[in-house]
């Protein structure tokens, strides 16, 4: 028999098995946890500054049309959504811009500026909005939505702050 200070053959096997097993368990187990919760650690929808056009191209009295596309990636699925609107310039100051969303507040068709009618016309149910987006005629319950935040970049490009979702 071995004396009490020495590890018996059986105990040695037990300890070695425990250590090796624990190591293998940890090396595979910990990454597995991250693997499972990975989507929860990703950023959600991305807010971003989106360029819509040069300030010098926007003329007082004529709404400036713009459109852009945002892509949302969920795993291997990419969903592209289109957005559009009109920048309405009122004076020389870039702060003095009204940036309208061209999505009709009735049932979400896209409105178009008509120089002839001096209004945004909706093709779906004949709504009519003034240059500032107020409802003039038709079923929409409220004025056109506006992009609240905008800024001008160093090279004179207007950017709006797009909030995801």
């Amino acid at each position, binding site marked *: 028999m071995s004396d009490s200070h020495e590890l018996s053959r059986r105990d040695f096997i037990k300890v070695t098995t425990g250590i090796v097993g624990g190591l293998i368990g940890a090396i595979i187990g910990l990454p597995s946890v991250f*693997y499972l919760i990975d989507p929860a*650690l990703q950023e959600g929808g991305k807010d971003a500054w989106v360029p819509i056009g040069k300030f010098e191209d926007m003329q007082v009295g004529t709404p400036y049309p713009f459109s852009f596309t945002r892509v949302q990636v969920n*795993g*291997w699925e990419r969903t592209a959504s289109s957005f559009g609107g009109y920048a309405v310039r009122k004076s020389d100051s870039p702060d003095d811009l009204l940036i309208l969303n061209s999505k009709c507040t009735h049932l979400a068709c896209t409105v178009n500026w008509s120089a002839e009618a001096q209004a945004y016309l909706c093709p779906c149910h004949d709504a009519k909005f003034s240059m500032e987006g107020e409802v003039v005629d038709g079923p929409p319950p409220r004025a056109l939505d506006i992009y609240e935040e905008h800024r001008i970049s160093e090279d004179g490009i207007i950017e709006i702050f797009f909030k995801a979702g």
Partner: protein
Amino acid sequence: MWKNIYLWLDERIGFNDLYTSLLDRPEPKTTWWNTLGSASMFLFVLQGLTGIFLTVYYTPSPDHAYDSINYIMQGVAFGWLIRGIHHWGATLMVLVVFIHMLRVFYTASFKYPRELTWLIGIGLFLTTLGMGFTGYLLPWNQKAYWATTVGTQIAGTAPFLGEFILKALRGGPDLSALTLQRFFSAHIWIIPAILAALIGVHLFLIIKHGESHWPKKDD
């Protein structure tokens, strides 16, 4: 309190007997070759675990299978590790099971009273190959597609029943969404269930008979 719970359970389960028959049963003098059965079982469990994790992101549809695997490899934290283990573990398992079979043959351990253990073993070998065959299609890339096209064609050359077998494997005359779906189902449910049941009987028989001794010169 824990002690009482332990005693209650022990009275009904018999931990001692369990321990003795699973971990402390008498063995003849054995070699490293006798560890290959346990190695096969370890790999089976490992494949099961990593496989379950892969199904968290994998999608068995022709539209998304390839992309979902790409996503596992590049988008998910440690996806490459989980898939890598499953990928190499599959090859290793076929290899280890085969060498285990060779060693049983070489030491003539299939003889009385272990014929049934051997027969079950043949079932284990075939189902292990079945896991490999069905798993290979799942990435739905060129290699997978054509390997399965050829593999099912080979099965289709069987006399009389050939065409039926080919259609049954593919779920129709062509490789399609149905093929991918039924291979997936076979790979994660049907074959593992058979494999687990066979392993259960295999182990029962091994515990019942004990390990055969290593043959001597005059055996």
